[in-house]
């Protein structure tokens, strides 16, 4: 750990500061929507808060976490220094500058367009430019990850790239593909409109371009968690990874099937045909396969660990697992939330059935369970696992770490189970307030208050998380473990793997084919049918 130590620290702290601010805003937003009177509540404060919450969690927490963890993996899994660390610091500076630019624009009330933009609503150009800088930073990271893997492969000809790094590069490659959609939307449509160069825009096209990004971006956030599942969890549990090959295949499948499926976010839209909606629903169904493979492989890896520790019988190995270790506990809780959230997701993607839940609290519940639940709880576990190797000190209190994880799990369930119910009752998303004088809406009130309590528990957990990390600064006991010891070996460590599972050339070609098939006509149609354009509506003009 030479260069990457400070890089990882810097990135993860930016991520966690953004996360903590987002938690406070999230609780306040739930308060605003509840029957209880909330302070500071106006339409402008509410929607600026929603914009900030989405920007902080979806763009800042995730991008900085992925980048920081990527640098860590590149140095520890490959056991060699990071190439061009100066560029990594340039990317960090770009990302921080972009974040600050976006935040200041939101705080001045000139960017209440939510993190998903909704053109022809147009915010101040500085909001979009800030986000472009964050994405540019992540592109530099992608290139650095590709260079790091390339250098290692040249130094170790014929040997399989360590799984943690293979997965990190899979994420980098996927992210380069993912950002094409939003980059095209911002550079060709939104930013020209924000600069006043264009007075009209094709909204169907912008929605389709954004959908290109909007699903795969979730896998970009998710992959650090899956890297932990495959490489850190079997080790923390005291076992072996059941199958290294299946791990590689899983990350390749994510690369292939997270991209050509974004139209499932537009199932209720009038500008896309049933044929392409159905095609992308079918491909969406396939993306559940790598997740199901992961559940099996990690389950089997944990069973190996449980039996090595003396677990007997059909389920005895579960009780024998070292649940006192935060990584193992987080994985158990993450899988429970993944199960619930995944079940909800299957309903969301089910074509016509989406009409039952589209833009209701059901959807909010779904992605908070998957992202806020499964993904973020593994971010916590990753931070707890790597902090001793970064600080050189052992964790002061595993009990507080476990308490924090449990609080997160309980808070997430208390918040999202009522949201699922409310969504089925028809409670819609993205409003600041409800008219509780209406008898239909009045009946929702108690559920909304329960979900608010869940939010408060989540906030408490988030603050405890930050406290737990700060505690390392006063810890005395040195950490005995070497960073490389975090990663599990497979039951049968591969001596060689096929070239297709040691690089991404073939898979990039396949992604291209799938994207042309899935998005070629849905994008081209706007130029064929000459769709009418809509007038730009600025939200940043002072009144």
């Amino acid at each position, binding site marked *: 750990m030479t260069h990457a130590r400070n890089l990882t620290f810097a990135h993860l702290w930016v991520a966690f500061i953004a996360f903590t601010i987002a938690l406070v805003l999230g609780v306040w937003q739930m308060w605003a929507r509840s029957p209880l009177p909330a302070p500071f509540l106006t*339409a402008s404060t*509410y*929607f600026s808060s929603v914009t900030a919450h989405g920007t902080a969690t979806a763009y800042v927490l995730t991008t900085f976490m992925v980048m920081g963890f990527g640098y860590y993996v590149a140095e520890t899994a490959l056991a060699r220094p990071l190439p061009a660390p100066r560029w990594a610091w340039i990317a960090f500076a770009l990302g921080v500058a972009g974040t600050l630019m976006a935040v200041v624009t939101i705080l001045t009330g000139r960017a209440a*367009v*939510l993190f998903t933009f*909704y053109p*022809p*609503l147009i915010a101040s150009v500085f909001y979009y430019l800030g986000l472009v800088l964050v994405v540019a930073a992540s592109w530099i990271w992608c290139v650095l990850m590709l260079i790091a893997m390339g250098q290692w492969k040249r130094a170790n000809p014929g040997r399989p790239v360590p799984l943690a790094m293979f997965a990190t590069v899979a994420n980098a490659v996927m992210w380069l593909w993912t950002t094409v959609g939003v980059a095209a939307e911002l550079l060709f449509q939104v930013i020209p409109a924000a600069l006043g160069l264009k007075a009209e825009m094709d*909204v*169907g096209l912008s*929605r389709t371009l954004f959908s290109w990004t909007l699903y795969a971006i979730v896998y970009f956030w998710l992959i650090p968690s899956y890297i932990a599942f495959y490489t850190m969890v079997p080790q923390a549990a005291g076992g072996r990874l*059941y*199958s290294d090959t*299946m791990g590689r295949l899983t990350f390749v499948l994510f690369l292939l099937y997270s991209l050509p499926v974004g139209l499932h976010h*537009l*199932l*209720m*839209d*009038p*500008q*896309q*045909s*049933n044929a392409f*909606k159905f095609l992308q*629903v079918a491909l969406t*169904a396939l993306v559940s*396969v790598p997740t*199901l*493979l992961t559940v*099996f492989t990690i389950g089997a890896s944990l069973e190996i660990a449980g039996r090595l520790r003396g677990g007997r019988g059909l389920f005895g190995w579960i009780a024998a697992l070292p649940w006192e270790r935060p990584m193992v506990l987080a994985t158990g809780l993450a899988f429970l939330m993944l199960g619930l959230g995944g079940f909800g997701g*299957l309903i969301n993607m*089910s*074509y*016509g*059935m*989406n*009409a*039952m839940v*589209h*833009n*209701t609290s059901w959807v909010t519940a779904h992605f908070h369970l998957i992202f806020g639940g499964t993904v973020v709880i593994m971010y916590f576990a990753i931070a707890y696992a790597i902090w001793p190797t970064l600080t050189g000190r052992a964790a002061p209190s595993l009990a507080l770490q476990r308490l924090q994880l449990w609080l997160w799990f309980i808070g997430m369930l208390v918040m999202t189970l009522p949201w699922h119910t409310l969504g089925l*009752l*028809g409670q819609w998303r*993205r*409003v*600041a*307030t409800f*008219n509780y004088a209406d008898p*239909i*809406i009045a009946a929702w009130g108690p559920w909304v208050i329960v979900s608010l309590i869940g939010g408060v528990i989540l906030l408490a957990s988030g603050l405890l998380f930050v406290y737990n990390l700060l505690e390392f600064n006063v810890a005395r006991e040195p950490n005995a473990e070497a960073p490389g010891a975090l990663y599990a070996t497979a*039951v*049968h460590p591969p001596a060689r793997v096929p070239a297709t599972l040691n690089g991404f050339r073939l898979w990039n070609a396949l992604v291209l084919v799938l994207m042309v098939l899935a998005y070629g006509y849905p994008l081209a149609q706007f130029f064929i*049918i000459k*769709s*009418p*354009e*809509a*007038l730009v*509506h600025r*939200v940043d003009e002072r009144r």
Partner: protein
Amino acid sequence: MAIAEEGIVRSELRWAAISIGVVSVIMLAIIYAGLVHHINPPSNIETIDPKTLHLTGEFTEPNLGTRVAADGQITSRIVATQFTFVPRCIVLPANRPVTLRFATPDVIHGILVTGTNVNTMIVPGYVSQVHTVFTRTGDLLMPCHEYCGLGHSEMSATVRVVPPGDFKPDSQGGVSCDAR
């Protein structure tokens, strides 16, 4: 480790086959619902110019609200605009097939009707169309469910579902909430 590599591969392949089987069953159910029960998304790709829709054609003011055509077809036309619906209340009969048609002159909106599966986005440039049969009578909420600007939270309409016997079109085939 006493587990042979072939055993691991075989177990993984077996599980992969089960996973693909589960996914196939889900897809078959979706296809069945689409073909037999006509549960499909609203996807008519019908363009309309948002800048002129209030001046000419189907979505001019006299045509808005519920109309019964000469052939008995019941259609309600609604304009969604920052930050209201025109009209703010529509009347429809229970237990009869009805069509809802929406368009917007400005930004993205969307609607759902509480307690039903009526749900669509309203995107400038397109007409959104939903076919449905309301089974319960009473006043249902039809809020805007997509962020459309700072007044979004106040944007809401009412769908008044009446017993078929109380659904009485005027001489032009129109039915409005005011007339009752």
